[in-house]
């Protein structure tokens, strides 16, 4: 057994670290480490910087602009982003939509969309969940019917999507829609389609979360006409596409790098706060909680590396292993946000929304973001397949239950 990274991998890590240090804009880093939301401009500006370096879509095939890195390098790249406080690019375009296009897209669709996704010309968002279709996604109702008359070469979309992360930034949205409500198997009536969000009939309505921030949205479709050439794969094959995407979750879903940085921030805060005249970090009750999180994170790092090693050698997709990383990774993230809030104690009470206004006066900028941050991170065990769904996946795929 050898738990260390090779010299080449270590050199690669140093290269990524050095480049991030020199090229990640200070204001963007400060927003990430200070728990401020990023604007659309922040995301696209960062995307352009990465694209100029050739690092915006590392996992793509080289002919489309990928870097040709192996999965270990990609893992290291993700981890270094987390450690540096560099925002990862939203996964909707480069990771999700692009994976679908690369696998199922027509040559015309690839040529039209992939370069723009790579360069960060458009902001992509995801239209999957609906008010009545969360974990049971196949029950979705948003319809796309073939138009008539002037719309005969179009689908006309009617319905609603929900939890559209950064939907208010979206230029394009990829959607699962129902193209056949008579299909015997409901999965067979679903299709995958790309929609320009400037099309008439689309309304984006914010859903303000309990942290006060505007991150997710409802998106309403009212007779939205979309050219048929925006359909990806065949009509009725949307579920095949969705399942394919599920198999493309990244090994970085444990967020080890980001949690390491957060843990360091937690230790720093707990070293500053005093309890009975001594640093809070020396308080046994608090310290034990902190140590247990740190130990869980230590374990998660090795577990991630073990799965990475297995995947590299077997050539198999990670499968249910990713579910385990997602469950523990989000639990660790949530525990850290909770301990951060506890470490600030009474000073965690002032409320400042994540994406509004400037904090001023005697209220500490940092500690006033810790309770909202804790609120916000309750999302982690809900999104991207709730942790309960992840347990279902492990039970079925790994345990044969």
């Amino acid at each position, binding site marked *: *057994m*050898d*738990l*260390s*990274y*090779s010299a080449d*991998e270590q050199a690669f890590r140093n290269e990524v670290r050095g480049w991030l240090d020199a090229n990640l804009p200070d204001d963007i880093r400060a927003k990430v480490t200070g728990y401020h939301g990023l604007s659309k401009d922040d995301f696209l500006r960062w995307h352009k910087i990465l694209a100029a370096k050739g690092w915006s879509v590392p996992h793509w095939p080289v002919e489309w602009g990928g870097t040709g890195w192996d999965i*270990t390098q990609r893992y290291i790249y993700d981890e270094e982003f987390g450690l540096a406080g560099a925002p990862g690019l939203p996964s909707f375009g480069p990771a999700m939509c692009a994976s679908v296009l690369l696998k199922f897209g027509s040559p015309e669709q690839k040529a039209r969309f992939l370069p723009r996704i790579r360069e960060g010309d458009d902001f992509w968002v995801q239209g999957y969940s609906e008010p009545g279709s969360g974990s049971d996604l196949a029950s979705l109702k948003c319809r796309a019917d073939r138009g008539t008359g002037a719309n005969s070469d179009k689908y006309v979309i009617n319905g609603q999507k929900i939890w559209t992360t950064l939907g208010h930034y979206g230029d394009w949205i990829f959607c699962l829609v129902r193209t056949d409500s008579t299909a015997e198997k409901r999965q067979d009536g679903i299709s995958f389609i790309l929609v320009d969000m400037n099309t008439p009939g689309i309304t984006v309505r914010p859903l303000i979360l309990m942290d006060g921030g505007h991150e997710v949205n409802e998106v309403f479709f009212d007779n939205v006409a979309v050219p048929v050439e925006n359909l990806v794969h065949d009509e009725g094959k949307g579920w095949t596409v969705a399942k394919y995407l599920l198999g493309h979750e990244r090994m970085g879903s444990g967020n080890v790098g980001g949690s390491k940085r957060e843990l360091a921030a937690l230790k720093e805060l707990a070293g500053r706060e005093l309890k009975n005249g001594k640093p809070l970090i020396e308080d*046994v009750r608090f*310290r*034990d909680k902190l*140590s*247990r999180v*740190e*130990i*869980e994170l*230590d*374990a*998660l*790092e*090795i*577990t991630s*590396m*073990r799965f*990475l*090693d*297995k995947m590299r*050698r077997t050539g198999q997709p990670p499968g249910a292993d990713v579910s*385990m990383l997602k*469950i*523990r990774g989000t639990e660790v993230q949530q525990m850290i946000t909770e301990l951060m809030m506890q470490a600030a104690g009474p000073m965690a009470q002032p409320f400042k929304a994540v994406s509004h206004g400037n904090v001023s006066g005697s209220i500490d900028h940092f500690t006033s973001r810790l309770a909202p941050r804790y609120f916000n991170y309750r999302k982690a065990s809900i999104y991207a397949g709730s942790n*309960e769904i992840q*347990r*279902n996946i*492990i*039970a079925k795929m*790994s*345990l*044969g*239950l």
Partner: protein
Amino acid sequence: MNFDHSEEQQQLADSLRKYLATNYSFEQRKAILTSASGSSDAAWAAFAEMGLTAITLSEADGGFGGGALDLMAVMEAFGEALVVEPLLENVGLAGRLLARTGSAAQKAAWLPGLIDGSVKLAFAGLEPGRRYDLAPAGTTATPEGSGWVLDGAKCMVVGAASATRLVVSAAAPQGSSLFLVDPHAAGVTLNPSRTVDGLRVADVRLANLLVGADALLGTAGSAGPAIEEAHDFACALLCADTIGAMQSACDATLDYIKQRKQFGVPIGSFQVLQHRMVEMLICTEQARSLAILAASKVDSAATAAERSRAVSAAMVKVADSARQVSQESVQLHGGMGMTEELKVSHTFRRLTTAALRFGDADHHLERYAALG
């Protein structure tokens, strides 16, 4: 990066598992536990034959120069089969201390026997009322002529009654020191008992025991770091043993919930049980990760602090996970999990003592934080 066992490590574990499947079944183990010595001479000879007693000794000492990683798969197999022979105590504690602190003459006298299985050693480290403190205080060593007089009490000495020699830690005027003691000498009293998971242990009383200068291992007062090192090494082995036992509890429970039918269906079809089963799996995998890290650091950490911190992290995670996995394995087996008839209740006992032997989660949390 490579998390696979080497071919040699895998072959050794495979042949050990084969041996255990034939000679150490649940029923055969029961017979061993109830025998007079509570330990199988045949199994011990077989382990020595396979080289298990020699793997971690240096080549100069007649061993193979291996480390904790080389014994991981072996210890996992021990945990699965609930082996009670004190391999861990011999190679992880007493034998390691002798090999690392003993003189050439002391090593020549005992290590060949340890390797061929004819000599057994036991480490008398813990003392009554002092929990997991490794620094001896209740047992003293007083210079007497060219030798020493040992006085005091040791407790929970695994394999003491069947040991050829005890390695006893004692407080000399110079500090922590180690001595080789004949457990059958006059002045040594053993009070034997059995642990809940079937190990033979004894309290050891030393009363005005005169030993020669040749009983001292290393120099007087310098044993502290060696004891810490051996204890970390033993902890890493215990973690691997516990991972094996946890995996066995998970496997047995998964089989059971697939077979056991209630309301006309296997109870494993119930989501509430599926999710608990998944948590058992995740706990085991997370603990396995830190057990691997601990073994790796025991073998190659740059500093003692780095080594001990990784070991304590693993001990915390393994203790927490062993508790959850053992409790859930019995719960998911229902009433049958409570009975002595199923192996899972015996694995429960093993997993319970895992957190009692070398420090519980609280002990190692404190150590982990102190070294951070």
